């Protein structure tokens, strides 16, 4: 059972009251429907008709519902089991528009099915690649997820038109929305924090209407076609083209990596003592991502993927129960029967969307930083983290240059998240060259030598990318051990310290010739400590046992051997 962090009101396995679950599901569904803007952009960029747009909107809502349900299910290998809402992801947008321009929307949908199937295969092999995703690499990916949102967020937040002029009314609307969401997440007592985004969105929409940021006339068509209607999807004319295979497979890979980062973020949000990714859950999540994308293509819309904005929302509001996600899927299906809701939300004012993206980006960037600093960083890792983020930021800075690249390359290089993540994975692999998982040091039995032993673990911890907490425990145990051996003159010669690390364990063996260290588990009383020199040795033994997860005192080839085992 995962230990629920203090800031989480409803953890992943919790069952909130039905009314609360419903309201939270509505909040997630509203935020999801706001992003219907991406499939609408696809239709508009490819010159589609109004009928195409209606069909794509309905298919998108149903695809999001199916993807979200599968992702939150977490049973029999399907879905991560976390509250992770699926959206028609902007990652698929560039190749989808390209395909639609070449062969119509049918080609986009056909290629999306292929991309989804690729993600399904990829998910089955993901667990063998766990070494590619240490905590600091995951941290880079999560930071870049957040940074990727900054551009679209600020453009909408400031109401930027044509690059330079800002719209004061747009800023006012965005500020009201963001201020409400932040304030309600921080100060109120009770459970109002759960609904901070819903309240912020509603107030932002109201402010936009009041300040004229959205035109009242644009809302007139909302009720056309009636309040209730059966969802209808035209049968797509699926097509396939070899030339687009590589761009779509690369896009599927990027989407899968995005899902990996999102699910790792979910794991971290839900566990107080998060240590490393649980790749089984991640694989199941990528499988659901692939199935969702394939079904999205089959239903007639662009590919879907896990929404990082929704994960940030669940963290900010403190409600991460998977039941909320399952109910979100049902609410989404229900909205497909009420076209005005989707129409209204797809007209969500841009500054309001900008405020939500700023809110979500703040959480993701901080979460990624926490992941990065959870491990010790030596020069290799510092360069891996810093270099990868610089590469990601360069992709944002050099947009015009990158747009000139061939489409298959653009789908990777054009995504700051994708290029930074791939760079982090590659540099991590490259810098593993020359880093041994075993190391040893020999010290003289003198007190000044102890600092050398402690520096040895500091340096090795950085090279291995070990958890700082574990290295601190190792240093404390070794310090105590050496102090006892040296001050009590137990060693008759040099002391050898051997260390071996893998992602799960850190084993330290201390060898010396001389008298054994008392292996007593009993802790002496304060009076005994002052009266008896041997009592200090017994206290050292007790402390060493507390610092290490397992201690074995024995002898090997006439040398005393103390083996310390630490879980990592």
């Amino acid at each position, binding site marked *: 059972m995962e230990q629920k962090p203090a800031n989480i009101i409803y953890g992943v396995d919790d069952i909130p009251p039905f009314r609360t679950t419903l309201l939270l599901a509505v909040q997630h569904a509203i935020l999801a429907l706001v992003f219907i803007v991406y499939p609408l952009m696809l239709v508009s960029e490819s010159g589609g008709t109004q009928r195409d747009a209606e069909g794509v909107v309905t298919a998108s809502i149903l695809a999001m519902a199916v993807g979200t349900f599968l992702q939150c299910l977490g049973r029999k290998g399907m879905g991560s089991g976390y509250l992770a809402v699926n959206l028609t992801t902007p990652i698929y947008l560039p190749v989808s528009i390209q395909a639609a321009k070449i062969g119509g929307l049918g080609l986009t949908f056909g290629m999306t099915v292929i991309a989804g199937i690729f993600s399904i295969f990829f998910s089955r092999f993901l667990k063998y690649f766990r070494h590619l995703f240490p905590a600091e690499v995951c941290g880079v990916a999560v930071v870049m997820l957040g940074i990727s949102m900054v551009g679209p967020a600020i453009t909408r937040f400031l109401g930027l038109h044509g690059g330079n002029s800002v719209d004061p009314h747009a800023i006012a609307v965005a500020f009201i929305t963001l201020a409400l969401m932040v304030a309600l997440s921080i100060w109120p007592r009770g459970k109002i924090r759960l609904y901070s985004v819903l309240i912020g969105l509603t107030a932002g929409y109201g402010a936009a209407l009041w300040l004229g940021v959205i035109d009242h006339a644009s809302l007139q068509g909302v009720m056309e076609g009636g309040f209730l209607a059966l969802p209808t999807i035209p049968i797509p004319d699926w097509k396939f083209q070899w030339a687009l295979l590589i761009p779509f497979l690369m896009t599927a890979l990027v989407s899968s990596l995005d899902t990996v980062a999102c699910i790792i973020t979910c794991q971290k949000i839900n566990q107080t003592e998060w240590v490393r990714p649980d790749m089984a859950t991640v694989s199941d999540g990528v499988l659901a991502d692939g199935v969702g994308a394939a079904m999205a293509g089959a239903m007639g819309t662009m590919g879907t993927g896990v929404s990082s904005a929704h994960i940030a929302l669940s963290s900010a509001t403190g409600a991460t129960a998977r039941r909320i996600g399952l109910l979100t899927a049902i609410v989404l299906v229900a909205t497909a029967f009420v076209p005005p809701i989707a129409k209204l939300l797809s007209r969500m004012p841009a500054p309001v969307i900008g405020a939500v993206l700023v809110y979500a980006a703040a959480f993701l960037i901080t979460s990624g930083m926490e992941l990065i600093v959870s491990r010790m960083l030596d020069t290799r890792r510092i360069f891996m983290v810093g270099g990868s983020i610089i590469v990601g930021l360069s992709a944002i800075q050099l947009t015009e240059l990158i747009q000139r690249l061939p489409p298959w390359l653009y789908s990777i290089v054009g995504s700051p998240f994708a290029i930074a993540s791939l760079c982090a994975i590659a540099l991590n692999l490259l810098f593993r060259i020359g880093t041994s998982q075993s190391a040893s040091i020999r010290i003289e039995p003198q*007190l*000044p030598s*102890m*600092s050398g032993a*402690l*520096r040895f673990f500091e340096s090795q911890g950085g090279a291995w990318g070990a958890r700082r907490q574990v290295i*601190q425990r190792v*240093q*404390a145990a070794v*310090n*105590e051990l*050496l*102090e*006892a051996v*040296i*001050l009590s003159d137990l060693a008759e010669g040099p002391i050898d310290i051997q260390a071996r690390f893998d992602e799960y364990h850190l084993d330290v063996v201390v060898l010396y010739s001389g008298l054994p260290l008392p292996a007593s588990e009993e*802790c002496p*009383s*304060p009076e005994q*400590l*002052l009266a008896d020199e041997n009592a*200090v040795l017994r*206290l*050292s033994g*007790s*402390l060493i046992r*507390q610092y290490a997860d397992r201690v074995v005192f024995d002898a090997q080839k006439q040398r005393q051997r103390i083996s310390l085992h630490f879980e990592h």
Partner: protein
Amino acid sequence: MSLIMKIENKMPGCYVVKFIGRLDGTTYADCDEKMNSLLIPTTKDIMFDMTNLDYISSMGLRIVIKTRQFIEGNGGRVHMIKMQPQIEKVFKIANLLNGIILYASVKEADDYFGAMQKKVLDSLR
């Protein structure tokens, strides 16, 4: 890997000893020497400010025990300000927290000294 000790005489017979760094076998001797200069009959209260102490070994604990035995034998008290979790854990294992007055912050300790000073001044009037 060093220890910085700052000793402040708050009022006659009352000292605040601030530790910064590590109190272990390598820093024990120097610390012990400085503490010995405080362990005189006129010393009634010693307050250890543990806020910035990162590590304490069994040898470091001996200094605290020795100080406590002397001060309590002299009719005084040993106080401690804000221990980091890893230090508190060591004190718990060694069963040394009983009888020590703990303060959550420097301000809380200052308030204690302020009240004590007032009491002394009132008794002199």
